[in-house]
């Protein structure tokens, strides 16, 4: 892309860093700039304050020179841009005025070309996609208030490339450069322009309000595309601070400086050291700040994940408990229904389910601990010792208790059938049923053993029967 370049007076003087960084921006984005030969001052505000025809003729001479080259014009200075767009508008819409203007400048001019601001060039002509490709040192952790001021966006009929109340183009550029752009309400508020010179009592207050608003919105720097705004926000800072007896530590940058820096230039290359408000240290502090934010973010994510994992484990345990309860209540329901055949196996199945989940083996292990002598070879003492507290924990479990209760109920409903499960011999089983029924203690004892240790239950059942038989024998003898 090739453009006619109109630097304007400021970019050779008070805004020399804007000039330097604009040239770098163009180079980086592959835009060729051909400076308009022997250009003159646009007349600025003093021109239109004084003489309307003059205020149109001064820009028109430059525009006519550019028109001869057939190129569109880049005018980075917002004031020049505004005067140029105004002149173009008048020449296109007011035939009589066009004739007057061409007579005054003694050149043909039909406004067949158009003037671009730096924002419009980057967003609409080059494109953010291409800009993103060029960014090598993103401005991570930068919090910027994009300040458009008046001249880039008003009047909308002349400028027209962005909204005049809530413009976005500079914000989009800053985001593409990796920075955060804050939302604030003074984006297009006037900085006071030349009032800071002619009426400091008025102008300084306007400057102060803009800076204050940016700071209150959380911005750590201001970004501008206007040399007059820069003069007020940056070069007049000491005067403003004095007038309001307040330190306003917040640097100001040209959008082109930040673009060049994000694309790899050093701040000094584009003239950041020429600012009145020290602006290099904020840029230098960004990598450390970004790293700190990244570390904090990583820590936060880790904590969140750990929390999530804990929550998942809790949910899993709750689901398991629920499943156990369900099995137990099924056994209970079966027992209630009087289906003894199914009830006992159900209770057993519930107990087996428990067994699967290490609690029951733990009970077993604890039991074996008591009989290390017999089965010691199976379970190593250390294992048994480790299992003991786990078994105690498992016994405490409500689910286990439910199974036991269900088993007790099964005993109460039909003792013969349950007894048959412990003793094969029908006669002895019948005796067991007689012994157990009506004896709460024995019922509970057997039920508990049947759930926790079937072998022991069988032994206990045999012992009960043998004891009863001996009792009966004694009774017969006596």
């Amino acid at each position, binding site marked *: 892309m090739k453009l006619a370049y109109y630097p304007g007076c400021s970019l050779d003087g*008070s805004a020399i860093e804007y000039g330097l960084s604009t040239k770098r921006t163009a180079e980086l984005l592959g835009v060729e700039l051909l400076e308009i030969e022997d250009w*003159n*001052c646009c007349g600025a505000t*003093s021109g239109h*304050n004084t003489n309307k025809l003059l205020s149109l003729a001064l820009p028109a001479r430059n525009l006519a020179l550019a028109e001869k080259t057939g190129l569109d014009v880049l005018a980075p200075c917002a004031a020049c841009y505004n005067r140029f767009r105004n002149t173009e508008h008048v020449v296109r819409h007011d035939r009589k005025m066009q004739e007057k203007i061409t007579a005054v400048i*003694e050149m043909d001019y039909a406004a067949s070309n158009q003037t671009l601001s730096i924002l419009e060039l980057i967003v609409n002509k080059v494109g953010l996609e291409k800009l993103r490709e060029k960014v090598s040192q993103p401005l991570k952790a930068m919090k910027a208030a994009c300040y458009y001021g008046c001249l880039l966006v008003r009047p909308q009929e002349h400028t027209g490339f962005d909204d005049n109340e809530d413009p976005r183009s500079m914000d989009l550029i800053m985001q593409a450069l990796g920075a955060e752009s804050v939302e604030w309400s003074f984006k297009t508020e006037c900085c006071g322009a030349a009032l800071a010179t002619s009426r400091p009592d008025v102008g300084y207050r306007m400057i102060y309000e803009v800076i204050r608003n940016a700071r209150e919105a959380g911005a750590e720097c201001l970004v501008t595309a206007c040399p007059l705004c820069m003069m007020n926000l940056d070069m007049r800072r*000491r005067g403003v601070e004095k007038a309001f007896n307040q330190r306003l530590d917040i640097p100001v940058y040209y959008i082109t400086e930040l673009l060049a820096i994000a694309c790899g230039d050093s701040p000094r290359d584009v003239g950041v050291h*020429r600012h009145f408000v020290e602006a290099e240290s904020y840029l230098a502090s960004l990598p450390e700040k970004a790293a700190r934010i990244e570390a904090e973010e990583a820590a936060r994510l880790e904590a969140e994940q750990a929390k999530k994992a804990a929550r998942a484990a809790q949910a899993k345990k709750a689901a398991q408990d629920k499943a156990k309860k369900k099995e137990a209540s099924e056994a209970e329901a079966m027992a209630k229904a009087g289906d003894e055949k199914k009830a006992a196996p159900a209770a057993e199945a519930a107990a087996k389910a428990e067994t699967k989940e290490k609690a029951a083996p733990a009970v077993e292990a604890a039991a074996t601990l008591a009989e290390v002598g017999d089965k010691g070879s199976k379970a190593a003492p250390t294992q048994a010792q480790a299992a003991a507290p786990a078994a105690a924990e498992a016994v405490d479990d409500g689910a286990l208790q439910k199974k036991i209760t269900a088993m007790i109920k099964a005993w109460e409903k039909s003792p013969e059938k349950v007894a048959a499960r412990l003793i094969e011999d029908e006669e002895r089983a019948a005796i067991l049923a007689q012994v157990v029924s009506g004896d709460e203690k024995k019922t509970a004892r057997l039920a508990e053993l049947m759930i926790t240790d079937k072998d022991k239950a069988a032994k206990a059942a045999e012992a009960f029967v043998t004891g009863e038989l001996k009792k009966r024998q004694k009774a017969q003898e006596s």
Partner: protein
Amino acid sequence: MGNALQLLPATQSDRALLKHLEEEAGTEVNLCYQCGKCSAGCPVGFAMDQTPRQVIRLLQLGLLEEALSTESIWICASCETCSARCPRGVDIASLMDALRREALKQGRITDRKVAVFNRAFLSGVKNFGRTYEAGLLLQHNLFTGQLFKDAELGLPMMQKGKLSFFPEKIKGREAIKKIFERAENPGGE
């Protein structure tokens, strides 16, 4: 049609002057229905003796002399917020511009500093074709009797390579001078 108010200045000459101002500004004061939106959003309204709405009202009532004598027209920073927000499409900022130029023509300057600044600025452009920032600072201070005003601006500017002591001159200085002369004394007007 479409006018909210139908008011006309009292005298023939005032009527002619108002018409001239409206033509210069490309707008009509009678469109204004005095809602005050211009003044609510004006960033310099706090410093004005008459708010933008009141200045328009003066013009509607034909009180041109009063309008031209306000301090407001010199305090106006030409930010154009008023024009952008006017629900009736009145270009208030452009009217302020036209009023300033008329007041200048009539020698009715209530704020000498602004006028001095403008004159100093344009004389640099007329002579060199470009803004002469150093000369502007000095000249402005001399004319306003504030010799050391903005010294905190000028010296650091020079130190930081932002202010050249000598003016930049373009080759086409003659052409610029002619533009000034023709614009100041347009043949037909």
